[in-house]
């Protein structure tokens, strides 16, 4: 979504006294390249929209402290997935390494609108119960060499689990 110069200036004013970013965005837009502001997670490089810091505690990051940090979920490979017997696991969806909010720094950057769409992070408020993020996380956990998930999945399926 395109931002007007006034909207860009309003976001920049909260973070810097320089309008150099506004100049570079306007130049790029004149050349036909749609550039906008975003906040990049320092850990995952995923992008949050330009109102991320302004709407901290309202739309984003509720409960994550007073300073805007990244909401992006990270897998904790040093902690084993829940014990199948002891926690009475009934579905393969319950078998995964635990996740944590990365709480990494977020940096104000200029990106093209295509880049923003391709690397957009899914905010907490838009994904109650982690339903959208979970398939992405499990896919990553299955591929990560540190993960115990592939072996546990194989054993689960051998025993006829679903």
């Amino acid at each position, binding site marked *: 979504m395109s931002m007007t110069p006034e909207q860009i200036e309003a976001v920049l004013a909260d973070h810097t006294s320089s309008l150099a970013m506004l100049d570079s965005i306007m130049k790029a837009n004149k050349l036909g390249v749609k550039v906008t502001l975003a906040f990049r997670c320092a850990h995952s490089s995923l992008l949050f929209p330009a109102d991320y810091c302004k709407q901290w505690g*309202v739309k984003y990051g*509720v*409960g994550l402290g007073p300073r805007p940090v990244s909401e992006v979920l990270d897998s904790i490979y040093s902690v084993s997935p829940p014990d199948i017997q002891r926690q009475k696991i009934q579905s393969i969806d*319950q078998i995964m390494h635990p996740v*944590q909010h990365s709480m990494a720094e977020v940096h104000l950057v200029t990106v093209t609108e295509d880049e923003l769409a391709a690397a957009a992070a899914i905010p907490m408020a838009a994904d109650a119960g*982690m339903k959208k993020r*979970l398939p992405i996380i499990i896919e990553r956990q299955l591929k990560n060499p540190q993960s115990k998930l592939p072996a546990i999945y194989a054993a689960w399926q051998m025993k006829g689990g679903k």
Partner: protein
Amino acid sequence: MQPVVISDGIAIANGSVNLNVIAQNDSLLPLQRAPFTGRGKLVATRSADGLKIAFQHGDRKVVAVSDITTVSGSTLEEPTHVVADNFYVEEGEVLLLLADNASGGSINLVYRLELIPLVGSGPLPPDTLVQLLGPISVSASTTDQQILQGTDFERPPKDAIGSIYMTSSTDTGTPTRQVYVDMQRIAPQSHITPSNRVPTVPFDISVGAFECPKNKLIQIPVSWGATGGSVFLRLQLQNLSR
């Protein structure tokens, strides 16, 4: 006699209620029951929203089903991550830590339960009960008349001295709170600190040391201006009898 520390970090499966977290770890099974009479402290964090815990010793509930602080990493810090630090267990009582993960993903619970031995005989002091809640969403330009609606300690089980700690997710819209006990206002409308986290002792004190008679309603209305937001609450009830 030395203090005992029960400490673990465990993944709680999504969509599950774990009725006995301590027993999940074989090495902690000998500590399932209090080895001596002592004073207890519980410190805990979770790695993502959606996990709640509760704690009781014997049949005495100390921590009602509560949201705890969300952190990245597994370091427990005091006093910011302390859940309850003023309860007294008798030798042989079962220590039950419950974890309820209603979210869609596995969440890591890191906890530390410390027991410090008490020397001498005589009756034990009463426990201080704790409930942590949040985020409790309050819509824009509205007043939620009772954010404790339906919670365990909305009506204290015993005569107690109460303390309330509160934070809000944002200052935009100027959230305020009042406190009533048994329909009497004991705290007028006042601003809520915008710390955007589960309240910590003593930094987020909102109202301290007020009388809570047994079974009398504690009511906390919260009002919010144009934007709305969420509030976080810590209610502590220091029982006056065991």
